[in-house]
């Protein structure tokens, strides 16, 4: 026999001002199986909770309904109180009398009647609640960091320093990401390589970190604490144990005309190459797409010159399988290139370049050794135009968002140019200057006031070539939209930051959400910025949206803490509000007929196939089976199931039916 206790809260006067709490308690007290119905000023206070704990013992309660505020607010509080009073916490329900009643209706009889209906509904529901035990799942204490940019590097080092194992997967031949391409960094103008390289080396040497470069995630299965990840190690065509990284092969390779990705196409590299001098690991890979041997079937010069005989032309891709407890996605971003802009000539003009190309020109290790020379003829530009918001904040181009970093790096670029070409003129076209951040606005001011960069507020409508000059036409909106025309030698576009290539495929493998621009989605825009909606998978860096280095690093450390917190437990406890497929004795075993339609709708791949077999292994019946670790309890399968064989703890068919009936009928 059910013995239900009901506690009606006044919430100070928040509820009692419009709802007659006394009447609610009295009416509910007359319901069948309600052995206690009482009211109190603040149920969530200590004495209020004690009231529940004592009543559970005194009245031997089998269910509790706290009629107070929203369960989204205090359900955990009261479930905990019940547990402390000796009642299974899942035998406690809340009736929402505040947000859904007292706060939204006038003081009158109807409001009190509604309150009674709400409480009665929960009383009928709680009678059908079952005592549930939290689900315990083991935790594999190895993290995987996908992407070896600054965000991934920071996350990996932070996790590794808590004493846990980390596997880092980087798809290019070296870690470092975009930061390794930068010349100097705002707002301090310190050399990017100088602050980055030591961290890259630290990753490679850390005893807790295993680094796989030239590798990509092939598939992800499982759930928080228990992922199985398959990784494809692309063939480097090299025995890494034998290679000493002497680089002789890269100098002898006859195929030397491949656009160098690291230099943003402004230099050439051979088919066997180390992406940049400070690369980690400092070993070459063969780019099979461009290698003469793979194209024509002969060459093998690198094999001949290699002093340690490390070249392996027949090396296959290798698939390795790893057991992982938590994943940090840190796959970064990319930028739009000049060919995205019809108004600026679709990338036809050699001297219209993007921000990353300018970084390479300004970099001491770049193709021009840090001298700003324009690509067409190697001349030093005397007049240079920077265009901010190229593509960003432009719904017509499909990119309505602000790329956040461009205002700052444009100021940096203009400044670097002025530092290198003293007599040169730098102009910046901008929409607004967005320089929120520590010492950021001061930085932009320095560009304007000390380095005399000419900031023009307005958009550039078109650029065309005339007598070897790039004519930049725009307006100055601060001078009542006066047309402006500048004869430039070179133009730098601060193009929009966009999601990295392959982001969508990876998100689908990880089962995490992404937005319409294919940036990975956080679980909550304010309160869960590093979590994803898949438990155990976290975000770091520009894969979430374009961001600068300090933000990427902070977020990486944030996700590392989340991983460390997860790894501080040997077992995870999860809410047991999951789906179950009914089971019974033979010959039926279950009302499930094995149609597996539920498998197709489950967003978490939580539904497995279970074969009922005879002793000699003959399959009698195939049933759906819910993996408790994966099920998130959405209940989509429950509503879909044609034979009503699946039910959801906490929202069972019987419970919701009882609620509908109780809500509409007075007892």
């Amino acid at each position, binding site marked *: 026999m059910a013995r239900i206790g009901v506690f009606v809260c006044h919430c100070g006067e928040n509820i009692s001002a419009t709802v007659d709490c006394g009447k609610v308690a009295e009416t509910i007290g007359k319901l069948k199986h309600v052995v206690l119905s009482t009211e109190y000023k603040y149920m969530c206070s200590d004495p209020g909770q004690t009231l529940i704990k004592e009543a559970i013992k005194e009245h031997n309660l089998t269910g509790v309904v706290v009629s107070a505020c929203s369960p989204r607010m205090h359900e955990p509080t009261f479930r905990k109180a019940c547990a402390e009073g000796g009642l299974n916490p899942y035998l406690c329900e809340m009736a929402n009398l505040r947000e859904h009643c007292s*706060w939204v209706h006038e003081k009158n009889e109807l409001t009190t009647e509604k309150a009674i209906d709400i409480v009665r509904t929960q009383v009928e529901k709680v009678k059908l609640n079952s005592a549930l035990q939290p689900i315990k799942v083991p935790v594999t204490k190895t993290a995987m960091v996908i992407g070896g940019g600054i965000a991934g590097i920071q996350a990996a080092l932070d996790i590794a320093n808590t004493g846990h194992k980390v596997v880092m997967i980087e798809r290019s031949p070296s870690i470092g990401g975009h930061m390794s391409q930068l010349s100097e960094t705002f707002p301090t103008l310190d050399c990017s390589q100088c602050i980055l390289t030591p961290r890259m080396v630290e990753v490679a040497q850390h005893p807790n970190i295993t680094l796989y470069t030239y590798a990509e995630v092939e598939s992800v299965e499982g759930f928080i604490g228990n992922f199985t990840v398959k990784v494809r190690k692309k063939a480097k065509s090299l025995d890494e144990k034998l290679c000493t990284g002497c680089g002789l092969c890269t100098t002898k390779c006859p195929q030397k005309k491949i656009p160098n990705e690291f230099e943003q196409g402004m230099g050439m590299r051979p088919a066997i190459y180390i992406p940049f001098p400070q690369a980690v690991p400092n070993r070459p890979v063969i780019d099979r797409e461009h290698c003469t041997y793979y194209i024509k079937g002969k060459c093998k010069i690198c094999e001949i010159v290699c002093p340690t005989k490390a070249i392996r032309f027949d090396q296959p891709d290798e698939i390795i399988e790893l057991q992982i407890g938590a994943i940090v996605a840190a796959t970064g971003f990319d930028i739009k290139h000049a060919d995205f802009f019809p108004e600026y000539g679709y990338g036809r003009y050699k001297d219209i370049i993007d921000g990353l190309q300018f970084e390479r020109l300004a970099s001491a290790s770049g193709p021009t050794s840090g001298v700003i020379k324009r690509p067409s003829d190697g001349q030093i530009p005397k007049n240079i135009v920077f265009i901010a918001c190229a593509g960003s904040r432009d719904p017509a181009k499909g990119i309505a968002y602000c790329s956040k970093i461009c205002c700052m790096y444009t100021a940096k670029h203009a400044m670097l140019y002025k530092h290198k070409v003293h007599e040169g003129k730098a102009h910046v076209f901008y929409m607004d200057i967005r320089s929120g951040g520590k010492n950021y606005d001061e930085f932009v001011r320095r560009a304007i006031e000390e380095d005399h960069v000419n900031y023009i507020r307005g958009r550039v409508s078109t650029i065309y070539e005339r007598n070897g000059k790039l004519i930049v036409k725009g307006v100055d909106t601060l001078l009542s939209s006066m047309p402006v025309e500048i004869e430039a030698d070179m133009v730098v576009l601060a193009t929009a930051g966009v999601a990295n290539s392959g982001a969508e495929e990876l998100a689908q493998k990880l089962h995490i959400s992404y937005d319409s621009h294919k940036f990975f989605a956080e679980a909550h825009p304010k309160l869960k910025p590093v979590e994803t909606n898949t438990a155990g998978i976290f975000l770091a860096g520009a894969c979430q949206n374009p961001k600068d280095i300090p933000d990427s690093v902070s977020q990486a450390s944030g996700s590392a803490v989340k991983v460390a917190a997860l790894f501080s437990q040997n077992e995870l406890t999860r809410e047991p509000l999951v789906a179950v497929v009914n089971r019974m004795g033979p010959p039926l075993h279950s009302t499930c007929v094995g149609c597996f339609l539920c498998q197709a709708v489950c967003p978490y791949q939580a539904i497995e196939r279970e074969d009922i077999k005879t002793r000699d292994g003959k399959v009698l019946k195939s049933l759906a089976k819910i993996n408790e670790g994966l099920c998130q309890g*959405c209940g989509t399968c429950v509503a879909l199931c044609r034979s009503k064989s699946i039910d959801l703890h906490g929202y069972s068919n019987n419970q919701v039916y009882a609620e509908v009936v109780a809500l509409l009928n007075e007892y």
Partner: protein
Amino acid sequence: MSDFEPKVVAFVCNWCTYAGADLTGTSRLKYASNVKIIRFPCTGRIDFMLLLKAFANGADGIIVSGCHPNDCHYTSGNFHAKRRWIMFKELMDFMGIDMNRVTFSWVSAAEGAKWAEVVNETVTRIREMGPYVSYKELVNKTIEEEVKNE
């Protein structure tokens, strides 16, 4: 007819509309007290047979509401709900249930004001339509007949 107080049941998901209705409360926006909410984890959990049960038990109107497309907490529950709803709507229509008695809408956790609008608009509409007895009678009659035939 002026003293007719419609009974409206709202089937809502926990993550968007329930939270949105919480926000209506926190913002102290007032709406008709005729609506009572039943919480589901997700619209994907809503078995539309429950709508029939609600009508059979005397509901005059029903609201079904969850997260906007693409915002479902479980990524796709609302799409499945929407698909099933398109089928079920046809069926209900075929059965002679006046579909004007059902409101299907998306209310996010930030749309407290929208929730009040959805409720008020539905209650006003149902109030004009009057009490819904035909389905209840139909159900009761069939049961009575069945009992008689046994």
